[in-house]
């Protein structure tokens, strides 16, 4: 039995040791390790078994080349990853180095949770200059892309052949694209449809805006396009909704969590080029192909490279130098490229990309990004805070439009109201 006096002593001791531990947490001078006495940095990522295996291999390679640094690697699933980071950020315990997603960069960067990587030594000479701004906010580099994605139109050549529809060659206007979808829908006999409603995809809209030389967001974080632009966009599929050219929202919902394209219900889908492996696994198709998105201006496809993920460091890390060396290794080392192939996206650094041999599916994606090189323009800045909500409401409102619950005008009104409220809230 603990007596009352003993109990008080215990509590006092506990409090004292907590205070002592807290003192350890305060910023200490940068520490470096040696081979005999290595420093340990924490690295965390999201992803499945495959990524865990590859990342562990890369870490082992890094440790063998840098005996003065040990890397403690941890991982969770994508959704849990951000709950955990939010709690850690509030508690002051973010890991030293983290795999990061573009949509969370501005949020954490603006709250000074991330290290300005411009202040440490990381080699970015192998990077396309159009890509780096996507990791920068107000002149500070918070994230460096490991790899890139580009937007594309996927199609299934085997299904097209069985329907007797010709394959697209990738230089097409929106009218040509739409009549191609109509042809597929007409020949699909109600079982195979053209595509999901492409006007409901935020990034496809964003690319269309770029094709018309409009930026989606202004530099001060406001909307860069007008309600009329949005109405024009949503009207573009008015004659296709309700026809077999586009799969109905109802059917798409039945198929969830798989996409209609992954379920072999549509022949085409517009999305990022890193979905290739997932689509192949879901659909069981032998081969899928990708071509550039349609554009009414053949010289301006509106395409850009988007970082599929970035490497960031915690602002509070005690091991800035070791963290920087690890990031530099993960983004530039050719052997790391060989380990990951395109499972993170196409390697962003030229040194890494050139040192990697790509085969099969990987080659299709890499060749696609090479083929659109001459059309690439600067990547947009990191999305505004709350972008995820905007993207989700864009999807939701346009699916109501597809259901026929809303007219184009009322849908545009509804989205603008939500977007403006959200931007005001976060301003």
């Amino acid at each position, binding site marked *: 039995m603990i007596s009352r006096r003993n109990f008080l002593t215990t509590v006092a001791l506990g409090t004292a040791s907590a205070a002592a531990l807290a003192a350890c947490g305060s910023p200490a001078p940068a520490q470096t390790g040696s081979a005999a006495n290595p420093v340990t940095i924490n690295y965390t990522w999201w992803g499945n078994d495959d990524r865990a295996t590859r990342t562990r291999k890369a870490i082992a390679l890094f440790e063998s080349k840098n005996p003065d640094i040990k890397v403690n690697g941890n*991982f969770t699933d994508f959704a849990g990853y951000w709950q955990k980071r939010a709690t850690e950020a509030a508690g002051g315990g973010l890991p030293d180095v983290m795999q990061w997603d573009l949509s969370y960069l501005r949020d954490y960067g603006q709250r000074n949770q991330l290290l300005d990587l411009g202040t440490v030594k990381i080699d970015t000479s192998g990077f396309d200059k159009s890509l780096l701004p996507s990791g920068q906010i107000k002149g500070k580099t918070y994230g460096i892309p490991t790899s890139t994605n580009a937007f594309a139109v996927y199609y299934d050549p085997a299904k097209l052949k069985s329907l007797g529809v010709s394959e697209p060659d990738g230089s097409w206007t929106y009218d040509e694209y739409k009549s191609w979808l109509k042809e597929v829908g007409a020949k699909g006999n109600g079982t195979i449809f053209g595509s999901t409603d492409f006007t409901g995809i935020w990034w496809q809209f964003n690319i269309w805006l770029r094709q018309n030389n409009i930026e989606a967001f202004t530099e001060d974080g406001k909307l860069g396009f007008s309600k009329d632009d949005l109405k024009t966009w949503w009207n573009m599929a008015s004659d296709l909704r309700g026809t077999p050219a586009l799969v109905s929202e109802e059917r798409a919902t039945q198929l969830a969590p798989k996409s209609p394209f992954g379920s072999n219900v549509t022949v085409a889908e517009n999305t990022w080029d890193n979905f290739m492996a997932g689509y192949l696994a879901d659909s069981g198709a032998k081969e899928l192909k990708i071509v550039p998105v349609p554009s009414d201006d053949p010289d301006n496809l509106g395409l850009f490279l988007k970082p599929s993920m970035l490497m960031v460091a915690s602002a509070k890390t005690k091991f800035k130098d070791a963290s920087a060396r690890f990031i530099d290794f993960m983004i530039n080392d050719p052997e790391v490229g060989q380990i990951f192939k395109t499972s993170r996206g196409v390697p962003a650094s030229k040194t890494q990309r050139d040192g990697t041999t790509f085969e099969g599916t990987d080659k299709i994606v890499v060749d696609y990004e090479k083929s659109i090189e001459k059309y690439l323009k600067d990547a947009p800045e990191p999305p505004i805070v709350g972008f995820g909500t905007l993207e989700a409401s864009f999807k939701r409102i346009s699916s109501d439009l597809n259901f026929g619950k809303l007219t184009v005008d009322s849908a545009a009104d509804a989205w603008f109201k939500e977007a403006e409220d959200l931007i005001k809230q976060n301003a």
Partner: protein
Amino acid sequence: MTTMATPTQPKAGGTAPVQAPEYNPKSESVGAKRAKSVIFHIVALALTAVVLYPALWMVASSFKPNAEIGGTNTSLWSSNFSFDNFTTAMEGIGGVSTLQFFTNSLVLAIGAVVGTILSASVSAYAFARIKFPGRSALFGMMIATLLLPFHVVIIPQYIIFQQLGLVDTYIPLLIGKFLAADAFFVFLMVQFMRNLPAELDEAARIDGAGHVRIFTSIMLPLMKPALISTSIFSFIWSWNDFLGPLLYLNTPEKYPLPLALRLFVDQTQSSDYGAMIAMSVLALLPVLIFFLVFQRYIVEGVSTQGLKG
């Protein structure tokens, strides 16, 4: 329920009970009775089918190849029946074996059961049987913590454990159980104990027993139904807990099953639904066994709680 009938027995020496016209089920015709029974069983079976279908779907899908789960495949059974999903599931994730995840879950769940039983019963004894200053105020505060949403305390709690250097250990997940922080269980046991006749401990006290003796020899054996309900619930809650382990554990080697399950489905890469479902089936087994073994006590526990002593 023979026990339910005891209080209604006429007392000897009292006034003769007035015979009220009683409902007699035997007066119904055999045919009507049979029809009623058939309808009852059909309705019950239909409801069972509706309730059990998701479970059946899960078990059936665990034997299907990944490409045949969801999407356009609506048939329950696949002609490509195989155990591949279970093989994949048992291989583990990122070098951590599935057995390790099971062991971790079991350690956490058993720790939670032991902790809750020990701490909640002692606290309940204090609240129900010992008169001490501030008892009702403390009891009120404890009930108030029941009303406090878990999400409000996540960050302050995390900061405390982080400053104490206890993140990435099982201590943050288990310490609350050993300190009776689960107010629901304390409350359940207090209510149960209040219904036990006070004459029992008064008799023990006259015989010279102290609080420890009264608690261990009189109260604990009588509280068996409440203890078993508590064990079942705290086992299942701990087994299914996702957020706690997610926030406090960093090393994959320490992850329990719910965290491991999520790793099979990754929105940014390909998802292995088959392996995830197979692992869900495996993860369900211990809970199912635990429930089947203790279910007769759960019914007893709930029904006796309704009895006035």
